[in-house]
């Protein structure tokens, strides 16, 4: 029953995002909302990655590094090697995941704030590396990236060439929302799988988990790799949407924002990062009208939310936190 309700909710959300929202935006004629929502969807995907590291009990302030790696991987493959953009999305994810496994193996031994601080440093390392390497073009960044080409299955064009569209924004919106839906369906499935239960064991007590024969070192790396994979994908699509990627495309600030998204949505809920990202990002954009008071009001509301709702916005709905074995 619970599973049924969740599925219905998920499909309702999918229909809302893929059908109703575009209809409403077209009716209003406010094309810029497409861009905002595209961005929010991608940030939610990266936040989902951070959520997974929270789920194994680690604080990850390094997601911006993997988004940056994904963005540059896609941009370099498209411009220097002439790859079609579509192939670079999974490749960017796997490159980010591979790098995270290399780094993760030693640093995942750290806990709590120690791990947090190292991941924070890794964000800076990624930014400074992008500045220093010749292939990433330094501070000038990589600009004028081509729009995604068509996807054709024989004579049948599944996705038209983005460059031939009068306005590629709705297409990017549908792409980003589809990726977000896929990512969260994947995370939901993961959390309710055997692997997900093992992750909970890591969150609750690593020593106890190890004593029952669970390979905790390996599982931590797997979780971190999945997390970074999502970051890399989000970064790759972001580079195509903005047609550029700079060392400052994803900074420490973004890493912190990803964490805030998870936290304010609710760390106990798979869909918390979506809610958190939508509320925070829309809130931030709405506050744009308050001009110089924007940051003051935003941060004030953040602090208030933490004081009033320490378990996240979703706890308001009275849903029990996502736990394994509830289906």
């Amino acid at each position, binding site marked *: 029953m619970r599973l049924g309700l969740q599925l219905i909710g998920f499909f309702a959300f999918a229909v809302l995002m893929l059908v109703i929202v575009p209809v409403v935006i077209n009716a209003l004629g406010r094309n810029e909302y497409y861009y905002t929502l595209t961005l929010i969807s991608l940030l939610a995907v990266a936040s989902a990655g951070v959520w997974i590291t929270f789920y194994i009990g680690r604080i990850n302030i390094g997601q911006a590094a993997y988004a940056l790696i994904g963005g540059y991987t896609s941009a370099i493959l498209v411009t220097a090697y002439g790859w079609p953009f579509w192939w670079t999305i999974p490749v960017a994810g796997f490159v980010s995941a591979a790098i995270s496994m290399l780094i993760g193996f030693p640093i995942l031994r750290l806990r709590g704030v120690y791990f947090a601080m190292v991941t924070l440093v890794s964000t800076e390392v990624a930014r400074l590396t992008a*500045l220093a390497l010749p292939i990433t073009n330094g501070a000038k960044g990589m600009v004028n990236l081509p729009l995604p080409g068509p996807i054709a299955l024989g004579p049948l064009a599944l996705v038209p060439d983005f460059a031939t569209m009068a306005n590629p924004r709705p297409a990017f919106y549908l792409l980003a929302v589809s990726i977000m839906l896929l990512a969260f369906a994947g995370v939901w499935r993961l959390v309710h799988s055997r692997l997900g239960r093992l992750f909970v064991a890591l969150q609750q007590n690593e020593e106890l988990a190890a004593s029952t024969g669970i390979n905790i070192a390996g599982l931590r790396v797997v979780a971190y790799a999945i997390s970074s994979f999502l970051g890399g994908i989000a970064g790759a699509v972001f580079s195509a949407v903005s047609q550029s990627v700079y060392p400052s495309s994803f900074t420490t600030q973004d890493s912190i924002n990803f964490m805030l998204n998870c936290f304010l949505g609710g760390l106990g809920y798979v869909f918390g990062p979506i809610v958190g990202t939508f509320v925070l990002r829309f809130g931030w954009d709405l506050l744009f009208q308050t001009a110089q008071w924007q940051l003051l009001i*935003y941060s004030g509301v953040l602090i208030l939310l*933490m004081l009033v709702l320490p378990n996240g916005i979703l706890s308001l709905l009275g849903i029990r936190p996502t736990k394994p074995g509830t289906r």
Partner: protein
Amino acid sequence: MEQVIVNGLYLGAQYALIALGLTLIFALMNVLNFAHGQMYVLGGFVTYTVYGQWHLPFVVALIASSVTLAILGALIEKFLFRPVIRRSKREESTMLLAAAIAFLFDAIILLVFGEKGHGVPKILNGVLNTGAIIVPYDRILVFGLAVVFIAGFMAFMQFSKTGRAMRALAQDRQAAQLMGVNVDRYSMIGFALGALLAGLVGGLLVSITGVSSGIGGAISTKAFMMVMIGGAGVVAGAIAGGFILGMLEAVGLTVLHSYGDITYLVIFATLMVFLAIRPNGLMGKPWG
């Protein structure tokens, strides 16, 4: 080379003072204070206002910076951190609260002082030139003051009753409480003292580097690194970390200059390797 060492020592002294406040707050409350850099900037702006705008003596300005930040720190501990720590089940929440407070400080500083960088008149004129090294007198004075403050802080922690209580709290919160230490009271004093140190060094450095609203985040990151190098929550570690980072910066900026702007990349990457080998830093206890 002598010049590089002198620069390193000078940087190290001010870094150590920044790291001390951060490590104190961490040791007492297990809170990673993301707003530490913003507190530093706020201290700088208080000194700028009192010394640069109102033309009161520099010492008065330093005291004003310290007192303002100490009061602010005490209020933040009492009304923000304490309730969140009490109600939240996960330690992440305090870190995110600190991040939100950092945003808030950034916003306030930006609103009140604007985006421009601000400087103040020099506190001392003239330059010490011995042939091998060239150091402006005001830097020597700032270095001397920083060393005096560090020594004073250590003496305070070592010999005063308050210091003893805080060390007990850092060692074992529960045991300290059972021995009759007023945990709430000393957490508040500790947080205030940590904020005071941030404000003090902020005020001290206005006289040399000036102050601008956007640098808080970078200062926080540097302070985290120093604390990591030395071992989180250990006073001697913070001082060691500060001097080591200062030296690395001074040497790196000289040696790596010809390879472009990669000093920080090398330092950060080295730090990650170092921490992978030695997760607790030089002197840290396992897992804090």
